[in-house]
């Protein structure tokens, strides 16, 4: 794990030094803004964690709606999922923030950011949960029925525990996506990591220097998650 991280960092640093070879670099000036950058980094973590929690709720609700026996519910859930997955996140952020959020009087841009990101990621998570539930064979549901469990007990004790094992690895991967996608929230003035890097670059009149720690800042978060996700995949494969 550490090796991969090191390799990625070394490659990044090499590229940056190659590009800024003939320029006077501004590393001292950038270093003096480290606190701003750290605040942005923490904001990214908080935004992503809040979005993960909310998008899990949205995803589970959508997945269950999608499997509902009421055709209208299933149709609406499917339509929502297709709508979200068929449009770019940037467009959704602009639309929800400048049209919907202002219309409903949601002024806190951080809260709006978390909601927008969760609505987006929730659609993807819904499909993961749905495929997880569907991968548990019908015979399991039947066995649960045969031993006298009610439908909700069958889901609680038999289907969901198995489905959760199946979807934990892709879900962990999705968390890494949430962290990366949160960078787009800088467009509506949320001071997360990408926004702080941009601020540092303009304040120090530098072009590149702020972006190197930015990329490393994201890698520190996403690499361990994607490695953890791979590890989980191997573990659960053995068990089933």
């Amino acid at each position, binding site marked *: 794990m550490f090796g991969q991280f090191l390799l990625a960092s070394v490659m990044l640093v090499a590229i940056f030094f190659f590009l800024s070879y003939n320029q006077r670099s501004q590393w001292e000036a950038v270093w003096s803004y480290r606190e701003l950058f750290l605040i942005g980094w923490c904001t990214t973590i908080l935004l992503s964690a809040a979005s993960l929690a909310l998008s899990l709720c949205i995803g589970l609700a959508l997945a269950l709606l999608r499997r509902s026996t009421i055709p209208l519910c299933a149709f609406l859930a499917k339509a929502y999922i297709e709508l979200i997955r068929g449009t770019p996140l940037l467009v959704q952020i602009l639309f929800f923030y400048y049209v919907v959020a202002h219309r409903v009087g949601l002024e806190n841009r951080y809260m709006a950011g978390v909601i927008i990101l969760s609505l987006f990621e929730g659609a993807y998570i819904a499909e993961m949960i749905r495929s997880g539930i569907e991968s548990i*064979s019908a*015979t*399991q549901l*039947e*066995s*649960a*029925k*045969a*031993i*006298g*469990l*009610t439908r909700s*007990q069958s889901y609680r*004790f*038999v289907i969901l*525990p*198995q489905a959760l*094992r199946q979807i934990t690895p892709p879900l962990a991967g999705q968390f890494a996506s949430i962290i990366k996608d949160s960078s787009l929230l800088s467009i509506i003035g949320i001071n997360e990591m990408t926004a702080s890097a941009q601020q540092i670059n303009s304040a120090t009149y530098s072009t590149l220097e702020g972006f190197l720690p930015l990329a490393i800042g994201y890698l520190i978060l996403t690499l361990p998650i994607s490695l953890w996700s791979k590890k989980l995949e191997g573990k659960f494969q053995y*068990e*089933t």
Partner: protein
Amino acid sequence: MKLEIHQLTKKFGTQRAISSLDLNLPEFHTLALIGPSGGGKSTLLRLIAGLEHPDSGWIAFDDAPIVFEETALLKHRRKLGIVFQSWNLFPHLTALENICLPLFRVHGLSREEAEARSFELLKRFELDKHAHKKPFALSGGQAQRVALIRAVAPQPKILLLDEPTSALDPLMSAEVLELVLELKVEGRHFILATHHLNFAKKIADWIVFIAEGNVLESGAPSQVFDHPRSTLAKQYMTKVLAY
């Protein structure tokens, strides 16, 4: 135990799996359903288990008809022990947890009582050293015996076994059939669908031969095996018993 089935029909699409089936058993202890694959044995067993809804007709145990409505069916299924061909156990739970789950969640035992009873049963059938293994670590025969124990543990009125050995090799089948015999000695009631004719002969006090969705023979083992009346049953027995 008394079993009555009247004009029972079950269709899958346009295919009639069970077609106006009548059966009247005033008293049976162990009933074996035999007959060719696709003849309707499994479907009949699943209807009796309340896992399928009939298109028409009715089934009654001891003069009480099964009500095909979800709440009533849930109650009905809780009085039965059901074992399928394969993949009965829940893969995310250990053998012990598999047996405990219905005792604890359905039949109102405390967690300790459920565990004690499950462990005692595993011990009696010499499976206690596998108590904490998950199904993937058990052999097919062991897994199927655990499934049988899970079905027996709540002390159901009747056990329904749908070809419990058809996914197992001969040695594992023998292990499972041995356990079934032991349960029979204990005085349990059974309805069993099987291809093991010799086993059916040995265990059952009533044999029903089902083909093309209907009962072609119904009688004591000696009568059905030695003097079948229908040509289909005759052909089936000769072929199966030839090897």
